[in-house]
């Protein structure tokens, strides 16, 4: 079995299995914990806070805007960029169609390429910030850097494969798929889980403060 076949087959399969089991394990391990009943008399029903919380924390409140806007913008640049590159690049859509039978229109290669470039730049900028800013340098740990690494490698290997730079296309493609496998394997163990947990966290705080008659 050559590298590409291995990457395409067993590697991705195993990675996907670990991703699924791990993600469920970690989500359920937390979401199934007990939560004490709140006996305080609510000022208003709490439920709406679960939704408001999702929206409210999408964008910094005005008093904080000047201090955090740069990192919000970089964050949005690469998150949206990742979505575009992952879900609107034709070969990816074909891959998904192959697996699940669904498909949707792709964006032109040039657009995806440009977005990929922007995404990479935003991620590099955030890494530089992480290393230079005294706050993020202090609070960062292995997870932060390794998560960055496993997010950036599929992007870089994918772009190299498209440009056919550095090695044979098949080798680059195999590396790309292996890096995706690595991302999937790491996903449940590190902070990539924020992609799920953010909903729970915002809903939790949103409800607590809605109940009190304020917002989070």
């Amino acid at each position, binding site marked *: 079995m050559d590298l590409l076949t291995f990457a395409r087959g067993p590697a991705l399969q195993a990675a996907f299995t670990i991703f699924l089991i791990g993600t469920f394990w970690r989500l359920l391990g937390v979401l199934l914990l007990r939560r004490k009943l709140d006996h305080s008399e609510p000022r208003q029903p709490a439920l709406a806070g679960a939704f408001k919380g999702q929206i409210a924390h999408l964008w910094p409140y005005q008093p*904080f805007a000047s201090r955090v806007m740069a990192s919000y913008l970089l964050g949005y640049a690469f998150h949206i960029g990742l979505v575009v590159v992952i879900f609107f690049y034709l070969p990816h859509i074909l891959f998904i169609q192959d697996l699940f039978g669904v498909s949707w229109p792709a964006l032109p290669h040039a657009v995806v390429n440009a977005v990929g470039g922007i995404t990479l730049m935003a991620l590099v900028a955030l890494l530089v910030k992480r290393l230079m800013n005294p706050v993020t340098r202090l609070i960062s740990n292995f997870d932060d850097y390794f998560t960055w690494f496993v997010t950036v490698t599929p992007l870089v290997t994918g772009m190299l494969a498209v440009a056919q730079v550095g090695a044979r296309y098949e080798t680059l493609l195999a590396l790309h798929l292996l890096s995706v496998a690595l991302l999937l394997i790491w996903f449940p163990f590190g902070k990539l889980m924020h992609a799920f947990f953010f909903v729970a966290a915002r809903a939790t705080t949103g409800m607590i403060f809605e109940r009190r008659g304020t917002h989070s």
Partner: protein
Amino acid sequence: MSGDVSDTTELQPLDLESSRVSVQIPAVRYDQQGEMSDDERIGIAMRNFVKDFGRVAAIYMESCVHCGACAEACHYYVQTGDPRYTPIWKLEPFKQAYKREASPLAPVYRLLNLKSKVTVKQLREWQELIYDSCTMCGRCTMVCPMSIDIATLVGLARHGMFQAGLVPHELWAVAERAKREGSPLGATAQVFEDRVDWMGDEHEVEMHMNEDQADYLVTMSSIEIQKYPESMAAIAKVMNAIDASWTFHSDGYEATNFGMLSGNAEWQKAMTVKIIETAIKVGAKAVILPECGHAYGALRWQGANQYGKPLPFRVMHVSEFLAELVTNGRLKLNQVDRSVTFHDPCQVSRRGGATQAPRVVLKALGVDLREMQDSAEYNWCCGGGGGVVTIHRADALRYKTFEIKMRQVNETGAQMLLSTCANCRQTFDDGQEHFHWDKTMHSLLELVADNIVETEQ
């Protein structure tokens, strides 16, 4: 200042003459309590930290993306630029403990030793971050993209720290005194009764003490009893003006809760239950909480949970009570021709939801309200909350954070400075003295009491 100030403990004498009340500056600091080995200490700290670890705290621990935004909302980081004051960093050993001991992946973390064991040395180092430099003001929650409520987690961390005997000297001393005497600052039941009498005479206002039955149980904070006793006359004037059936009660008068602030869950419960049982005994329809921030959180939002079931009476901060009275017309106020700025007590406003109440009252007073740049739920903490104001070694840092407040107040150009928390008020008094500032903090309740339109009833 007159009136007898009691001090019943030789060991930790109170200093009731300074601009903020606490124990006197200790000659020797004891920031560690009890005799135990380091291993025991760490075991107890971690057990008690994870004891109340429900879903909420676990979700918070799992969600952080280490973006650092929270630092930008915290007065300690903003004023010093010291990254150690980053809110989430204040929880680092506890996060480490959670991941290693309690999270769904704990076995993996332990197996691969991804998180090392927390040490006592680490916790000693973190005492300053858990106590001296977090007022539990909750401002960081608002900036966090995940809305992680650091203040809640710091509260849990304090549970672990308290049981492990790792509480700052002064905060431990006042909490212990509150447990023993019923008040952290020497306002024992006897002192309270005496001072209520004294205020009744001084202001010629009828006081109600230990009535068998009353619609309203009125509580006080020991800071008011000892330092701002006029508050007691003020609330009595309001109550009498609306002809209410009300009482102070020596079985349940102290609304502050240093059990909560220091991290002793048992003491917190004991103090809360005292008020609840007194209110039930007198058949109160409502408990009126004083101008105190954390007292509101302790009874309004945590009280029923401490008690284990819903409370058979309403719990109102005095500003909410006043707002209701002016809204339904039971209390008529004179117009006050002054410009005013209002400092929101974090626990009442951002964390309590009673943000509009004082503004309703200010409107009824007809003042020209000039809001600070970041006001209401976005306000900056005075720097004295969470028990921080009691800790002498935190003074220098506290003054640094107080500079934000002075700047914001000055920018409004208002003639008068008001708030609805006696703890904020003493923090302002102390800051005023330190900086020789020309602004004095006043009480909204007292301003209201001074401007009641007497009607024939």
